[in-house]
């Protein structure tokens, strides 16, 4: 057996596969920053440019530049002013993802799941917004069917619905097809993709050109990840 396992492990632990550029100009996902933007939009479709830039620590101009490249090369699809990965979500849900990406929506939805039946007053204290703002956002979420508002004497209480759970389950087949299409696309571009790991929530791919290969984790569960602040 060849020597050098320790050194290879040392390099693998310190490597950030997302940032390295491949020597394969012209192919969208050969660019490290572009892969970061693509991965982020798989996690949170229709995210605002400002949020993408802030979370990835890159300028909004850079985010826009890479986003347009991904749209031109059909990795992303555009809907109004927002973009999402082509084939990963039901296109008619773009408005839903836009809402989830807007200020305060994700926090309020998370709070409703954490404390079902939470009052608007308690919710306002929890997410540090005014009661009026919380009331407006909760009504908007209710219009999408994400929560139900129930009058309880002098309180209005917010109860989560199972809409996202149903949409998430219904999206499994679409996400599978999205992963397959991505693998085919990378193969067609000569990036020789390898599937390293696959489960219901993500694909782990390795691909490259010119002797250099990178690893990319592609999140496949946007109905669960778009409104959660981890990852």
């Amino acid at each position, binding site marked *: *057996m060849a020597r050098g396992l*320790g050194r290879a492990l040392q390099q693998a*632990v310190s490597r950030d596969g997302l940032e390295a550029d491949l020597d394969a100009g012209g192919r969208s996902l050969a660019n490290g920053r572009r892969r970061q933007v693509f991965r982020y939009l798989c996690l949170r479709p229709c995210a605002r440019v400002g949020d993408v830039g802030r979370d990835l620590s890159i300028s909004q101009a850079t985010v826009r530049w890479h986003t347009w490249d991904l749209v031109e090369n059909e990795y992303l699809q555009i809907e109004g002013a927002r973009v999402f990965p082509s084939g990963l979500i039901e296109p008619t849900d773009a408005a839903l993802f836009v809402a989830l990406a807007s200020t305060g929506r994700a926090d309020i939805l998370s709070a409703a799941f954490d404390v079902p039946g939470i009052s608007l007053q308690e919710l306002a204290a929890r997410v540090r917004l005014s009661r009026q703002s919380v009331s407006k956002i909760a009504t908007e979420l209710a219009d999408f069917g994400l929560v139900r508002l129930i009058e309880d004497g002098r309180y209005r209480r917010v109860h989560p619905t199972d809409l996202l759970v149903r949409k998430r389950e219904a999206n499994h087949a679409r996400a599978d097809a999205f992963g397959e299409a991505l693998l085919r696309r990378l193969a067609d571009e000569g990036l020789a993709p390898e599937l390293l790991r696959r489960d219901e929530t993500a694909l*782990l791919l390795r691909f490259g050109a010119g002797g250099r290969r990178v690893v990319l984790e592609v999140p496949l569960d946007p109905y669960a990840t778009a409104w959660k602040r981890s990852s």
Partner: protein
Amino acid sequence: MRKIKSGIYGLNPILDGGVNENSTTVVIGRSGAGKTTLATQFIRRGLQDGQEGVFVSLDENKEQIIREAVEMGWSDILDYLEDELLVFIDASGREFSNFIRKELPAFVADWKGSNARIVIDPLTPVLWSVKDLYEQRDLIGYMFKQTRKVGTVLCTLEEHGQADLAGPETVIPMYLADCVVHLKFNSDDADPSRLLKIVKCRNSRHSPTSHAFQIVRGLGIVVDGRDGRKPATVRAPAQFRQLLQTRAMPKKVRDHLEKALDGLTDEDFRGLKPEDVLDLILQEYPGE
């Protein structure tokens, strides 16, 4: 399953000959219990046999561990480092978690079938990097499953609070590991005492009792490997075999039981009477 020498004097006999190759062992103990010393002995023994060693330090820095090894009298560690047979990796728990999720599959694909000894000291920061218990179990289970493919793995685990091994930080790795060693260190008394117990070891007839151990300069951990067990006897399996000839049962059941008795000793029956065990088994096949 092939056994490899642990490098810890006195431990091999109570582990039924040594550590199972390509297995994962978790060593649990409080601060000062001797976890890092044990891990260093384990990796050094492999280096002496020509195996590669990787020491992933998620807590103390490389220099401190090397200095303590040299103070222990193991200055050959420096030669192994020079030759890159031994590699130290400093990382945070979060960095190592990211590595497990994103880089480990590719690494294992490239190095599958290798025969290294890998130490992760301590595993605790990896657990702390993931809050959700389900994710913790998924991450640790995946890491154990993958790293076994490239070598024999030993992870240390910090023990906090009561030494009952019941907290989720210890339960999850204990459940998933192939072998669990508990180092008990009582530093409160005027006469400090150290005990080592094998909590579990898959595919091994390990010692069931606690064993005193000492840490000796130049030798490291030395375990009192006498386990007090009587020499193995086979009275119960022999009696069981006789019963198989006298009791009526389907041939396939008799053949299966004959085969199952191979290698069993009285210790495996743990006081169960052979006739009672056979009655219970035959209740599974009424009228056949």
